[in-house]
């Protein structure tokens, strides 16, 4: 992979030069928290590079919360999303398999994916809820981006991950080949961020995470006390980079028109799996809570050959019941071992 160097000043003017021609979103600090916003001439200096992942998952740009799918929407525009982290990029693999690479294609996803240029960032200051290292990932992107930006004091290192990324850089003369010294500097920063995440997670044990396979007994999920604090708000599923569940609403008129709208759904909602006559395969809160984690660490592993959890920690950060899933999993695995 090509990695180029560009000075701080030149990168900033490079980005400024792009905002006229396309919509570019990047992370900005709102009261200490990172949210995506559109870059404008006024805010371009305030982009937050290389801190950690923004609050919103990347899927928001590719799989909108609500979208008409029949007849499908038209006029999807080109956008650039700056700032997704490694955990978000890993999640893309699941989104792609569900909506683009299977036997049946979503009407809009592939086009939107094609028209979205992704400029990811390294994470230098992970949150206490981050745990990518527990699920075998690292706080720096290793693929699935068009460009990746690593900040070092001297400027930016830019990895080119795709032809799309190469075209975006174009013939700009301000990018230079990097030296081994700069690469070493970056590697050292990355190593430190990884160590920080490991340190933040030393109380949690995911060693035997594959043992969640078959852990579907309701009683098992009553053992971690905090599960009862779940208020079934759906924050964890909405913010998850790999939660793809949606429902279809019929939004046409009552006579002939058949319009269908896709809306995010959450398996934590009691109505999610409830059938017409009222029966539900997951009648209790514990079944539903377990289902989400089993989906991440068992079902998706079978479905896609990879975990559905990338360690972004959004489900922990956003939990209204203050449930730390890492503690729940550690406890459930420990209990299961006893049986």
């Amino acid at each position, binding site marked *: 992979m090509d990695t180029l160097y560009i000075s701080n000043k030149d990168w900033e003017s490079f980005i400024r030069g792009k905002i006229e021609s396309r919509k570019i979103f990047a992370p900005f600090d709102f009261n200490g928290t990172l949210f995506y916003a559109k870059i404008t001439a006024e805010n371009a200096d305030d982009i937050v590079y290389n801190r950690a992942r923004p609050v919103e998952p990347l899927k928001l740009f590719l799989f909108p919360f609500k979208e008409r799918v029949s007849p499908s929407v038209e006029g999807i525009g080109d956008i650039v999303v700056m700032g997704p982290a490694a955990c978000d990029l890993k999640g893309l693999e699941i989104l792609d398999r569900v909506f683009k690479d299977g*036997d049946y294609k979503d009407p809009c996803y592939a086009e939107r994916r094609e028209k979205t240029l992704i400029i990811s960032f390294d994470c230098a200051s992970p949150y206490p809820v981050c745990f990518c290292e527990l699920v075998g990932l690292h706080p720096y992107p290793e693929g699935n981006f068009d460009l990746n930006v690593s900040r070092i004091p001297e400027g930016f290192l830019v990895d080119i991950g795709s032809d799309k990324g190469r075209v975006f850089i174009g013939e700009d003369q301000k990018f230079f080949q990097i030296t081994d010294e700069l690469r070493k500097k970056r590697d050292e920063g990355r190593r430190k961020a990884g160590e920080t995440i490991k340190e933040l997670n030393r109380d949690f044990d995911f060693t035997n995470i594959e043992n969640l396979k078959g852990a579907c007994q309701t009683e098992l999920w009553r053992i971690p006390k905090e599960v009862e604090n779940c208020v079934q708000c759906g924050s964890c599923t909405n913010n998850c980079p790999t939660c793809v569940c949606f429902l279809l609403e019929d939004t046409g008129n009552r006579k002939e028109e058949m319009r269908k709208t896709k809306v995010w759904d959450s398996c934590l909602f009691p109505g999610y799996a409830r059938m*017409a006559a009222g029966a539900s395969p997951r009648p209790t809160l514990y079944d539903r809570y377990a289902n989400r984690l089993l989906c991440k660490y068992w079902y998706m592993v079978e479905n896609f050959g990879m975990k559905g959890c990338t360690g972004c920690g959004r489900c922990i950060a956003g939990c209204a019941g203050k449930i730390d899933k890492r503690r729940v999993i550690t406890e459930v695995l420990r209990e299961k071992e006893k049986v």
Partner: protein
Amino acid sequence: MDKNIYEPVKCRVIEVITESPTIKTVILKPEKEFSFLAGQFASLTVPGVGEAPFTPSSSPYEKETLEFTVMKAGRVTAEIHNLKPGDTVGVRGPYGKPYPLDFYKGKEILLVGGGVGLAPLRALFFALMHTVKDYKRIVFCCGAKTPDDYIYKGKILDEWHPLCDKLPLCFRITVDRKDEKWKYGEGVVTKTLDGLDVDIKNSVAVVCGPPIMMKFTTLKLLEIGYTDPQIYLSMERKMYCGVGQCRHCLIGDLFVCKDGPVFTYDKLKGKPNIWV
């Protein structure tokens, strides 16, 4: 461009037949041909109301019309019951895997259906009857709560039952509670499996009905000697997309929509809450 997976084929309602106090059959004429294989299902849209998955109850060989037999259980099914001839609905599909009829060849096919579960079995029955000589014998065990709840009564009792004299076919008919006019068996449908004269080693059992019925039928079939892979169960779950994306229908890691809706029991064992 790929065809939009969410765009239904428009259908005109031709006829609505009342099968029982809670079950109706709607006969539809699709605007363009809609083919399916026995065991596959389709999503039926009532415009502006919603969509729900059903296995057609008509013959897969019938290309002009399509029938769905639907029990009134919720919002969408209530609207299906309100349909009148001339109304417009939509169908998407077919989805899921068909029954492996090639594998069934030369075998004794045991069909066990209860209540509205007879609907998918009716499509399978038509398909089997189409090439009935391919199978050693068809044994059809039918059950319902009461004689009034029996669907396809006219067909089963008056048209199909008499065929048993001529074809390798046999019916075992029961209701949970009979009335004074009922001249067939009484008892839950598992009772029809008592004294079954089937060469179990060379047989498959296809079961469709309410979860509790499927559970006890499976247990009974295992008791009389069927093995897990010989038992074909029709699973039902909340479903939206029908194509393995929305994840509502998962039973563990299995999609009812694309891996099913019919599963052999060995595939389901160990998955969470299968008998719902």
